[in-house]
């Protein structure tokens, strides 16, 4: 068959042939990406629209047959929901602390392991390890580490202040959550910073050094500006991920082992998605929960756009490496 086509005379005028080729090319492209496109429509766009429709109803998981359209009621309610306000406030507060510290730690670690040192691969592995550790295991790691009974943290503090017996998960749950988050996020960001550092041509740094710049000056005036795209990337990703934190505060709840329905983290760790989760999977308020999640989506979108807007001022795309 395929051979036979070689002998066929070119029957169509050239332009049509070209159009046909263009069509076939386009078809090939769409066939190749069709799994993603289907997945995007069926598992991405339609659910997103579905969540929005759901947020306009009183759907509770069971009443699909006599569901009622309630308009913007759920959104009106969300704006008057003091728990949601508290949760959003705690989430934004946590992010405003965790995201900048995580960025500094990630960049610092990348600079440290990018030096010509022995065992730099070992160090990289150690810093990367926490990002490999699944959330359940990580929650256990921190629960045990800060446990007033058998934990190391209080034992270390005890060598300085013997009477301080802090019940971390009860008294300072957000501190533990922040440490857990930074510890877990450090490695992933470090690797991306490392990639960024290695993409900076060595000549730039060397030229500055020959001109007599100190190591600090080289980092501050050469490396840092060239890394701003990477900082921007990690900032956006950290913020988007951080706003969606759900499992960590649940599993860090004192006296709780699993994320069973009805588990409520301490008020300080009652984050926004925790609230949405509770409304949906505990109180069965699917419609209201969907509205809460759409508001979150709007917040994430707004923050991302805002960051992109400000990025023109401080992100440096001048040099193509």
């Amino acid at each position, binding site marked *: 068959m395929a051979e036979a086509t070689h002998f066929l005379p070119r029957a169509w005028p050239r332009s049509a042939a070209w159009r046909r080729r263009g069509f076939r090319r386009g078809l090939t492209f769409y066939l190749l*990406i069709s799994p993603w496109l289907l997945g995007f429509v069926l598992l991405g766009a339609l*659910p*997103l629209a579905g*969540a929005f429709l759901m947020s306009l109803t009183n759907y509770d998981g069971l009443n699909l047959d006599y569901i009622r359209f309630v308009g913007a009621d759920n959104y009106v309610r969300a704006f008057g929901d003091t728990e949601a306000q508290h949760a959003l406030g705690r989430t934004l507060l946590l992010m405003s602390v965790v995201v900048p510290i995580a960025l500094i730690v990630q960049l610092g670690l990348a600079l440290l392991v990018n030096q010509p040192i022995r065992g730099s691969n070992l160090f990289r592995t150690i810093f990367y390890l926490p990002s490999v*550790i*699944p959330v359940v295991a990580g929650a256990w790691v921190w629960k045990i*580490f800060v446990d007033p009974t058998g*934990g190391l943290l209080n034992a270390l503090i005890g060598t300085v202040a013997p009477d301080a017996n802090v019940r971390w998960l009860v008294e300072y749950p957000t501190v533990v959550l922040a440490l857990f988050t930074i510890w877990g996020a450090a490695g992933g960001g470090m690797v991306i910073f490392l990639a960024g550092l290695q993409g900076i041509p060595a000549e730039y740094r060397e030229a500055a050094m020959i001109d007599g710049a100190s190591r600090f000056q080289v980092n501050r005036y050469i490396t840092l500006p060239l890394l701003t795209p990477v900082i921007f990337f990690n900032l956006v990703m950290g913020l988007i991920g951080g706003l969606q934190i759900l499992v960590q505060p649940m599993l860090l709840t004192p006296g709780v082992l699993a994320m069973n329905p009805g588990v409520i983290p301490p008020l300080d760790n009652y984050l926004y998605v925790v609230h949405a989760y509770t409304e949906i999977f505990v109180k069965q308020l*699917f419609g209201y929960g969907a509205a809460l999640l759409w508001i*979150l989506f709007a917040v994430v979108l707004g923050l991302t756009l805002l960051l992109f807007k400000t990025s023109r001022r401080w992100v440096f795309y001048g040099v193509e490496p």
Partner: protein
Amino acid sequence: MSVLAVRRPRRISAAETGLRYGPVLLAAVVFALPLFWVLVTSLKKQSEYNSSPVVIIPPEPQWVNYQLAITLADFWRFAGNSLVLSASYALIVVFVSALVGYGFARHRGPGRNQLFILVLALLIVPTFVQFVPQFVLFARLGLTNTYWPWILWALGGSPFAIFLFRQFFATFPRELDDAAEVDGAGPLRIFLQIYLPNAGPALAATGIFMFLWPWGDYLYPSLLLHQENTTLAVRMASAYSDPHGNPWQTVTMAGVVLYVLPLIVLFAFAQRFIIRGIVTTGIKG
């Protein structure tokens, strides 16, 4: 990599060595301390765990905790569940993402660039927003308590992996395609016989990342699966407690070590791979 060291073969003073190694050692200790504590706790007697002052190194390591961790939690069964779920998810999602990445890197069609931006833009949609209607749908289709949701997710590819493969395949010389096309190979055959076999590092790196997600994820198995067919992640949260519901910390830590160990071994072997993979395919271009 360490360009400065290569080009300046001179002796380094003691102060400089201290400056170079001090901070990195300190950071390594801080990062490793919680993990060190998991390890020593897993070898303590429960009475040592509860005693005050805190026992740092247990005088007689209790290896029996590991035996208990395996028998009490029915460890191998749930590890089997996790392995089946994670491996099938990873295999499918890597293959699909590579195919889609190849499509974006090598084939042209109307709206290609806009679609590629869409792939990336989806990264900012909070996953939970999409999950809630999916959950309702899965429940109505009778797909809860099965692994089908993960298979369906995998069949749609992963934006992160698609991006990585697209960047990676864009670096391949086009002459390969031309030569293959002259020999009469179609796009699918070019992908299977030229692109896929030459994508070793990218396949390994994304494969590990994609394996890690279901292995480590807690949320979706806890919402979609039941006690019998759930994953090790869910099991590890509450498998070890006394009849009063108090956790048995020492055995739990042994379980956690066993749960995490395969991942650490995997990453220790693939460490160079992954960093190189991200450096070459990651954020550039």
